[in-house]
């Protein structure tokens, strides 16, 4: 176990989150089981008050989760300096078997808790609090990935072994890799990029046709293919090296941290695309605000990633 200051900060906040989310879980179960809007019993009044605590706690956790996700990557990047063989966060994350799952859970939780807050906001806007039961049920469900993330993160840092030699992103993200990541590279690049642009296009179509189901679906597929195409294709243009396929090195200073911009726009775009549209469905509203935000940020993402290969082509007259 290595205790760098960054790791201690992350672990300490994990402990805090665990504590608060357990409180929120107990309250949520109680509220879910006993909530009755029409009751004038004292119990109902105290449940109403407790529901505030839950939302305060979740707001607290979520507002920290977004910067902490970036901070986690930052920490891994920094750790790569002392772990032999690692050049960036990728090597560090992969030095432990479940490092990838940890990252995936972190991302999923960002979507879940963001959605919870949207739902909470919508709920509090209505006199009848129509989604209260639903939102506490959702929290009970979301607690599972949250717990998984916290537990994985704690065991991740405690099993991190700095003397172990790990592979750098160059070998992880290549066809030669032994992990299932290598499967990505077996697929044709142009196909992946084609699918990526196809779903970007589909988002646009769904927006104009006002078809929410397609919009959600397209956004979901868009995140997946955005990441895959970023690894196999776009990242090489950022690095200007045909063999460098890492999604983490983008976050390093050498590339002006452009990765942070990419990931944040991708997150905002797809989050509002999926979460916002689902919420609209629940509210039966045709408020287009979320869709507009989604479309804007999705487009922004497409423009940012496309700019790299295009400018490379304009400068050098060839593709990598």
């Amino acid at each position, binding site marked *: 176990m290595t205790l760098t200051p960054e790791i201690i900060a992350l672990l300490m906040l994990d402990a805090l989150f665990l504590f608060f989310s357990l409180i929120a879980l107990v309250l949520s179960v109680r509220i879910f089981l006993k909530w009755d*809007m029409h009751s*004038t019993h*004292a119990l109902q009044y105290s449940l109403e008050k407790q529901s*505030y605590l839950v939302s305060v706690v979740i707001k607290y956790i979520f507002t920290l989760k977004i910067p902490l996700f970036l901070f986690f990557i930052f920490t891994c990047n920094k750790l790569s300096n002392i772990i032999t063989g690692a050049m960036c966060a990728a090597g560090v994350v992969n030095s432990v078997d479940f490092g990838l799952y940890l990252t995936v859970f972190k991302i999923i939780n960002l979507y879940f808790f963001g959605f919870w807050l949207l739902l909470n906001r919508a709920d*509090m806007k209505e006199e009848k*609090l129509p989604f209260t039961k639903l939102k506490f049920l959702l929290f009970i469900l979301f607690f599972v990935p949250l717990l998984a993330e916290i537990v994985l993160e704690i065991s991740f840092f405690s099993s991190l072994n700095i003397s172990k030699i790990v592979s750098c992103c160059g070998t992880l993200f290549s066809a030669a890799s032994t992990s299932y990541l290598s499967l990505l590279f077996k697929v044709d690049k142009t196909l992946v990029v084609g699918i990526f642009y196809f779903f970007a296009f589909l988002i646009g179509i769904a927006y104009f046709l006002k078809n929410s189901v397609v919009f959600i679906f397209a956004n979901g597929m868009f995140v997946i293919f955005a990441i895959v195409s970023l690894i196999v294709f776009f990242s090489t243009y950022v690095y200007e090296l045909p063999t460098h396929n890492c999604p983490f090195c983008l976050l390093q200073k050498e590339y002006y941290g452009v990765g942070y911009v990419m990931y944040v726009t991708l997150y905002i775009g797809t989050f509002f695309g999926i979460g916002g549209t689902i919420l609209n469905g629940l509210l039966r509203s045709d408020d287009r605000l979320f869709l507009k935000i989604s479309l804007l940020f999705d487009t922004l993402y497409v423009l940012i990633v496309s700019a790299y290969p295009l400018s490379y082509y304009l400068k050098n007259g060839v593709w990598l």
Partner: protein
Amino acid sequence: MIMLRDIRKVYTSASEEVVALKNISLHVKVGEFCVLKGASGSGKSTVLSLIAGLSKPSSGEVMVDGKQISKLPDTFSAHFRRRNIGFIFQKYHLIPTLSVKDNIIVPLIPENLPLAQIEQRVQNVMEKFSIAHKATSMVKYLSGGEQQRVAIARALVNHPKIILADEPTANLDATLSMELMTIFEMLKNEGVSIIVATHDPLFFDLACVDSIKEMKNGEIVS
């Protein structure tokens, strides 16, 4: 305007249950001036706080302006309260360490109005109740009558449709009480509904009072 239907209110503490209100029904129309009288502990204050949505009935319903205020979630009842209800308390209940002006602003804060509008409204009420010259003094250094006027100004700064006053004359001398009566009368003429809980006989034979309800042991007896 204000409808209480079959209200029961039970306070449960660890050791005992206190029935504060048993089966109360009350109707107050727009612009009506209603006086609740009764001995101490008969439940007058409880009725007022139910109407304001500050506490919730154990059964029955409280309708104010067509809304069942007792069933509103907190955000909405607070919103409703600050738009529609001005509360004048027995002990003024000002924030002693704030200045007169800051005390009057308090109900406006959650609304997040533009600064100019807030200034305007505060200035208006301060002038109306002639405390503008004390605007920056701290409330705890004011005399009782001045504090009372600040409390009234605070209650009226949002132009409420309903005034709830709990023993407003308890700490006032005869002239100040009379002054308050003229204010109430003026408000009534502006179409504001007023409910006063009191045992001050001064209210009982006032011309502008429309109805007097007597309470006893948590019930309205007349």
